[in-house]
């Protein structure tokens, strides 16, 4: 087996990466897509509670950017805050598939304990902070995280994702400006996937490109082919290294394409199907990455197939485990509003009903 699958490199691996790291990135990007496909299946079986969001076509930049971070599990590593389409970043920084499935099933032992949905989840130790639906808010929040890294003299870095659409928000502007003025160790990633729900980028900005905004804030910016995983990794690593060296924030723009609708309910009637087809056929980040790995002899087809098999098994186990998890107890709705005890239950829930207990 080992002999048959040995890779024979015909070119040096760039960006200081090892072959093991290349394979790990492959595993993560494959895992992202397979997990989403699994979730879509569960959605069709009505096992997903509420909406489901796909990142089809954008998985590469999610994984490759987060891969540039220092990943730890003890609260000493870098931190990121994802968007709804950054499942790849989450899996890369350390979220486990079973946790994602529990989230989408609204289980009581999910990271958000059934109180918040999809990948809006947090684990400070593993380095991820859940976003919220009012977009842009996490830019100032992550600027504050980076501020504290500096206040404490820690060489840690923050990374925050924003879509082309939410660059129009006030929170984006105030957060980016704050980070720039304070020269904070923060990497701001604008994922330009051409669509904000149904709104094309030309209705989002009059700027030639989003990376042009970097200059306005007095910070360096770089536009990258978002479906070229190694290019994304290289640019992200440069930005992370700059931040770690105390040289301040960087704005990265990843050019990519959202091949699915905003969420499962969205039939994308506003998009020319040929456009989606073209991206799928000629510019899929995983296809391109696999070709790079194989063409350069950095991996063999057998290796990649074996990784895919492991992922399928891992995901079957994750789903089985998540299905066993209980839904939350209803009264849990009262807890964790404040740190000093639950809020009152409605008086009609007492037996007998008692208004003085409201």
């Amino acid at each position, binding site marked *: 087996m080992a002999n048959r699958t040995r890779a024979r490199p015909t070119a040096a691996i760039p960006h200081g990466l090892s072959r093991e790291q290349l394979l790990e990135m492959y595993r993560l990007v494959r895992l992202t897509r397979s997990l989403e496909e699994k979730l879509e299946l569960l959605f069709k079986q009505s096992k997903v509670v509420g909406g489901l969001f796909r990142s089809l076509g954008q998985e590469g930049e999610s994984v490759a950017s987060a891969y540039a971070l220092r990943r730890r599990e003890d609260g000493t590593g870098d931190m990121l805050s994802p968007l709804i389409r950054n499942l790849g970043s989450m899996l890369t920084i350390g979220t486990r598939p079973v946790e994602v499935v529990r989230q989408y099933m609204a289980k009581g032992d999910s990271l958000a304990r059934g109180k918040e949905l999809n990948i809006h989840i947090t684990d400070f130790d593993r380095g991820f902070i859940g976003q919220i639906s009012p977009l842009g808010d996490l830019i100032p*929040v992550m600027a504050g995280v980076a501020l504290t890294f500096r206040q404490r003299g820690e060489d840690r870095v923050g990374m925050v994702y924003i879509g082309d659409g939410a660059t129009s928000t006030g929170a984006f502007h105030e957060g980016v400006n704050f980070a720039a003025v304070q020269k904070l160790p923060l990497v701001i990633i604008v994922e330009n996937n051409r669509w904000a729900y149904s709104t094309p980028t030309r209705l989002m900005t009059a700027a030639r490109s989003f990376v042009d905004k970097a200059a306005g804030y007095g910070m360096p910016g770089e536009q990258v082919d978002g479906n070229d995983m190694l290019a994304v990794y290289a640019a992200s690593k440069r930005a992370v290294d700059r931040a770690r060296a105390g040289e301040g924030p960087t704005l990265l723009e990843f050019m990519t394409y959202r091949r699915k609708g905003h969420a499962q309910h969205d039939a994308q009637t506003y998009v020319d199907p040929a456009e989606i087809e073209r991206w799928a056929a000629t510019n899929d980040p995983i296809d391109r990455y696999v070709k790079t790995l194989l063409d350069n002899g950095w991996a063999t087809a057998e290796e990649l197939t074996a990784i895919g098999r492991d992922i399928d098994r891992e995901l079957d186990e994750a789903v089985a485990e998540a299905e066993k998890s209980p839904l939350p107890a209803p009264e849990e709705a009262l807890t964790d509003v404040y740190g000093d005890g639950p809020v009152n239950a409605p008086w009609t829930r007492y037996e007998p009903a008692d208004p003085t207990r409201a």
Partner: protein
Amino acid sequence: MATVIEKPEHVRLTEQGKPVTLLEAIREGMWEEMERDERVFVMGEDIGAYGGAFKMTEGFLDHFGPSRVVDTPISEIGFTGAAAGAAHMGMRPVVEMQFIDFISCAYDIITNYIATSRYRGSGGVPMVIRGPSGGGVRGGPFHSQNPEMAFFHTPGLKIVYPSTAYDAKGLIKAAIRDDDPVLFFEHKWLYRRPQLRETLPQEDFVVPLGKARTHREGKDLTIVTYAAMVHKSAEAAEVLQKEDGLAVEIIDLRTLLPLDEDAVIQSVKKTNRLLIVHEDTRTGGIAGEIAMRVNEKAWEWLDAPPLRVAAVDAPVPYSPPLEDYFLPQVEDVVKAARFLANY
């Protein structure tokens, strides 16, 4: 490490046994918390070298340095959000709204992000958002507001609004030590009022959040109020005592959220008559909530319908005759109390 400038005179008043104003009490409270706990830091507009629009943080930058006294761009969303991020990382930020009117600029991040964080599983956000509030200083529509009730309806927040120097110091310390986000309103008409000067204890003390205080004891009528209206109500109570022989009890809420319902109910059960006085505008003011709670829990004890005195449902006007008409005055409280007493 930068050279630390010694503790300046203006934060040594209590140490020297001198009486302090409400503003000085808050300043001392923040200073002491920053000395006690290195996780505490302050952030806001013009708070560094300038010391803040009301000089609240004067001298802080020299003593604590720029890492703990952070001057920010004009960006209420930016620095409020950044404070939340710092709090996530274990810090205890205190941010200043230059005027509390500008807190609305950060409404989304406070109500959607900060207030829900613990519930969502992102942990408690131990931070304080403070700033000068209230009218009576001819500040016009954007330097006079009482926006506390815009946040009262948001589970996850705590809201504090002190009326005395002692409470202000004890409450700012409790707010900084609390594990949840606290909005701390400072009535600017009270900031430097000489009548409010008091000599505070030299030792460290806190006033617990969520506990009202009986400002004046009485048996005939309860006035529930807070902030500047505590003092207007006290003036009215004097008149009522002298001219009508009425013994008015005044409950100063001090903390609006969580509301000290027990203190209100207890007093109402004693006096059987309730007047709620607030400087905030009438519709959606806290009077509605308090009256409903009394309705739920002390209906049988009431000898008259609960009534309220509040500001006009309008923006805060600028010109003195307009603002004086807009705000509740001592005569309004006297009139309402007489109406209740004679009911």
